[in-house]
């Protein structure tokens, strides 16, 4: 599996988290740009999940399959839950929640690589 998608996700989610933190620092509320950014993150994560599932379907097996399946389920939920939780907030702390989702996504991709080195970063 090429490392292009995971690497793109890490770079994108860190940049996105930085943008969300900037919004927090500037005392901005949740806006359209953050929701669109979350949507892009969601799509990228779903592409990665699809690639990993395809590899599993091809017969590839990680050292710990239950862990990988847990990650495959939990990862796409991160931007969704953060989006709902952050949108409920009408202060600068909404974007701060989105920043957490960005940072968590980057960490999750690194963990994907650790639990299955076939997923290159």
């Amino acid at each position, binding site marked *: 599996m090429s490392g292009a998608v995971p690497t793109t996700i890490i770079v994108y989610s860190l940049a996105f988290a930085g943008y969300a933190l900037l919004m927090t620092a500037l005392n901005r509320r949740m806006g359209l740009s953050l929701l669109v950014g979350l949507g892009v993150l969601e799509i990228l994560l779903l592409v990665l999940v699809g690639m990993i599932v395809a590899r599993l379907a091809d017969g590839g097996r990680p050292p*710990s399959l*239950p*862990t990988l399946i*847990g990650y495959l389920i*939990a990862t796409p939920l991160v931007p969704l*839950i*953060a989006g709902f*939780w*952050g949108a*409920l*907030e*009408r*202060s600068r*702390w*909404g974007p*701060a*929640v989105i920043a*957490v989702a960005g940072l*968590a996504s980057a*960490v999750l991709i690194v963990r994907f690589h650790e639990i299955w080195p076939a997923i290159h970063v």
Partner: protein
Amino acid sequence: MSEPVASPKTAASPPESTRTGPGRLLVAVYGLFALSASARAAVQIATKFSHAPVAYVLSAFAAVVYILATVTLSNGSPTARRIAVVSCSVEFVGVLAVGTWSIADPATFPDATVWSGYGSGYGFVPLVLPIFGLLWLRHWAKRAKRASAERAIMPSAGDADVVAGSVDGDAHPTGSPVRSVRDPE
């Protein structure tokens, strides 16, 4: 009379419960840790418990503490806040104790827990999270105290939000009939 007189700061600042304002971020991070710690503990205990029993039991304990903190911080009632103080304190002591233990006796920890090395595997977030949690809860304890003091001195001027927060944590609509009856004007 409206509530800004009683507590202008409260009326002006957005946080009206422990889960809003900075609490929104705290609950998000606690929720993230609750989820990851419990998933990790579940997999470890289910698949390879004998490999590192102490580490896995501690992972499960940490997971329970994180779940408790997430739920009580997002609830925010006085009882929930008291439980949250206990769970954040246990969490802080746990990070320090397990962190020290994992460094002093690495043989007991062939596999890491959330709190190993003071949470170094998680960017030391487990170390700073309980500090922010306790600061946030202290802020709320002070606020509830101030609100009840204000209520005792001048019942009519009590801020509905804060007074309600010290009773059941729910925001009540402002300008209720009871308040206007008690209003000296």
